[in-house]
């Protein structure tokens, strides 16, 4: 059952991509911070989950309860301490975008450097719920299914919150037009800080979930950043549904190439797919056109 194999493995991988992309689209779409250190926080969360599991025998699913709020607070602090000066001085969104790329590039090295000092460069993995089960004739480990389930639940909760609550509406308003949002009494800075922190919490959740079934090391952050970026841009910046579909597409596409063509070409396939989408639709699959 090759097709089911690919579909299932692709869905799990795609679900992770979609979840992390959701966080990035919050940070970029709402707070206008193009966070190049995004993937480092995923890796950091994975490393913390690993330490909690091996050191304290804490299940990564319980670990979520520790890691996610901590990541939220940490990212909130990063926004208010490190990024606020840039937000204040930026005259336009474009300036902030460039500044934030540069600043978070520095942050990338700092986070990676700290991880490197503590954990070194070797690969980490641990066995948790590594029980094979059969789904539709295909065999898959329980930890992958659990990760997918959690990702779906978290993603759905965020989606509903954004679409149905007042705070969610405020975030979406800021994403569309921060100036106009300010005029209808939305505290843009607070909303941006909240969105950035929420994005950080989501990527941490992604990191914990990924750590259950992937092997990772301190240098892998950039790969995750790029994947998340690709998904966000393919889906159209600020478009949650687009991110979900693009994430799943990417996961399934990568898995298919790895199984059917050559595992060495998965990344190339990712970029080729991404470049093709950008060429046909410069603002993403579901992005609105510029004018």
């Amino acid at each position, binding site marked *: 059952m090759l097709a089911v194999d690919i579909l299932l493995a692709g869905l799990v991988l795609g679900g992770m991509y979609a979840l992390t992309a959701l966080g990035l689209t919050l940070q970029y779409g709402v707070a206008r911070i193009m966070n190049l250190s995004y993937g480092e926080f995923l890796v950091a969360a994975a490393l913390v989950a690993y330490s909690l599991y091996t050191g304290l025998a804490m299940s990564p699913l319980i670990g979520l309860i520790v890691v996610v709020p901590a990541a939220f607070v940490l990212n909130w602090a990063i926004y208010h301490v490190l990024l606020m000066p840039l937000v204040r001085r930026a005259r336009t969104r474009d300036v902030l975008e460039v500044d934030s790329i540069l600043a978070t590039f520095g942050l990338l090295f700092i986070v990676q450097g700290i991880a490197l000092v503590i954990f070194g460069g070797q690969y980490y993995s641990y066995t948790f719920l590594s029980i094979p089960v059969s789904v539709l004739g295909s065999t898959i480990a329980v930890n992958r299914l659990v990760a997918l389930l959690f990702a779906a639940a978290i993603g759905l909760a965020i989606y509903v919150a954004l679409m149905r609550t007042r705070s969610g509406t405020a975030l979406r308003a800021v994403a569309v037009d921060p100036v106009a949002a300010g005029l209808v009494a939305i505290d843009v800075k607070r909303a941006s800080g909240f969105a950035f922190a929420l994005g950080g919490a989501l990527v941490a959740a992604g990191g914990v979930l990924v750590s259950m079934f992937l092997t990772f090391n301190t240098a892998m952050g950039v790969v995750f950043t790029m994947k998340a970026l*690709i998904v966000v841009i393919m889906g159209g910046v600020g478009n949650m549904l687009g991110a979900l579909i693009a994430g799943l597409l990417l996961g399934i596409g990568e898995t298919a190439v790895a199984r059917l063509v050559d595992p060495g070409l998965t990344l190339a396939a990712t970029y080729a797919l991404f470049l093709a989408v950008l060429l046909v639709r410069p603002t993403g699959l579901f992005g609105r056109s510029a004018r």
Partner: protein
Amino acid sequence: MLGAAVLVALVAAFPLVASGYHLALGISILHFAVLATAWALFSGPTRLISLATVAFFGIGAYTVAVLHETLPWLAVLAAAGAIGVAVALLVGISTLRLSGIYFVIFTFGLSELIRQLVTWYEVNVHRSVGRYIFASVSQREIYWQLLALAVAVFVVGWLVARSRLGLASRVIGDDETVARHAGIDATRTKLTLFAVSALFMSLTGAVMAPRWTYIDPNIVFNPLLSFEVVIMALFGGAGVLLGPLLGVVPFVLLFELLSANFPNYFSILLGVVFMVIVYALPRGVAGLLPRREAKRTAPEPAQPAAQAEANPGALLEATSLRKAFGGLVAVDDLSFAAKPGEILGLVGPNGSGKTTVLNLISGALAADRGTLTLDGQPIAGLGAHRIAKLGVARTFQLVRVLDSMSALENVRVGFAFRRDPLWGARAEAEALALLTRVGLAGKADLPATQLTYIDQKRLELARALASEPKLLLLDEWLAGLNPTELGEGIALVRSLRNSGITIVLVEHVMDAIRSLADRCVVMNAGRRIADGPPAAVFAEREVVRAYLGGADA
């Protein structure tokens, strides 16, 4: 000039006294100097941040690895440059329309894609990931070749900055829409600079390749290089030719220092230094230097030589134009004509499609159906820059001036890219005269952003006039003026008509329409509901109803 020559000679003599560690450091500085300056050549003025540096660098290096045993060195260099330029053109044609963050990510993806493809090819076809380079090139020779490249890139940069190409790229960086409507072929401009910049990057890769005796894709396509180049160039200041160099020297030394003394904490310290720079030096080191003031003599009076065409037929003719945005039909089966030398008023309630009509004429939008002719020549579907070159100039409803330039430079843009371009001292004199004509005398050197709203509108008009239009499209140019300014504005527009320019005037200010327009086309919901002299059309029932609503107003 002499100073530069002496400096080059001194730098060239460096390997005669230095060796080993210091020579390696010199090579490192030159290598980054070429890359960062080449990067800034394209990314500085256009403000498109490219992370493709390493793609071209790697292409150059790999060309050497593959060809160095079969071809003489100069031929290898030529091949490296040619392949780099070819890839840049190929990629540029399809991608340079991307803007902002999309371009950044695209270029990063491109580098990764090339790296993956080369790796895959090497593993599966060549059957070994890396290649050995046994070229007998000494460190000194590498140093001198890099120095030659550095001199070349500075000369090219210096020439570009003084050319229309350089001006065009700055206009694009400020506002690409304005650029196109001023007659700049934005795609070609960006493509040219992108290719030139890629040429230097590929050559640098080729020259550096013999330094490694062994290369593999992960070495020569290391994305860190792209980032380092961006950082150095931005730190130094990408808007000035020598800016990137100001970033290269301290950074190369810093990298050296950190990796030699704190190998374990290199990454953390690098990050910290980096962030400090972003906070402390937003415009780069070059941004700290004072701007040079322009010196100039008093303006000579000059008149823009726009003459009425003897053509008795219509200058502009629109037939059955239609444009829909999704389900909204903004312009529906619209036909009208503007005779040479007349002012045609285009009026109608908000949302009736007036600005869309202007966008169709100026080429900002393409019509779904219908024809547009200028002087009998079809213009529908031509790019905005080509329509501009044919003699159509416009202003924008929301005023668009080029922020990074002075008032004078804004007007010079109009002169520089019209059908018979005006450049140099004469353009400057004429630009000053035009500024005086629109009422901006004495404000030539002010940055465009510092002008008041009204003055920005004047500036926009002057820029449009500088392109010597046959047809001028004014989109609510008189809106928001106070009564005195309105009087002046009306007189100015009338004087333009008297000098022979045909004008299409989109306007809500009825006094202006009544006193200026020879004829009026009234639009409602995308259709023409009246056409004739202002007094007559405003008396028509349908027009009154469109404006005032009501059952039978």
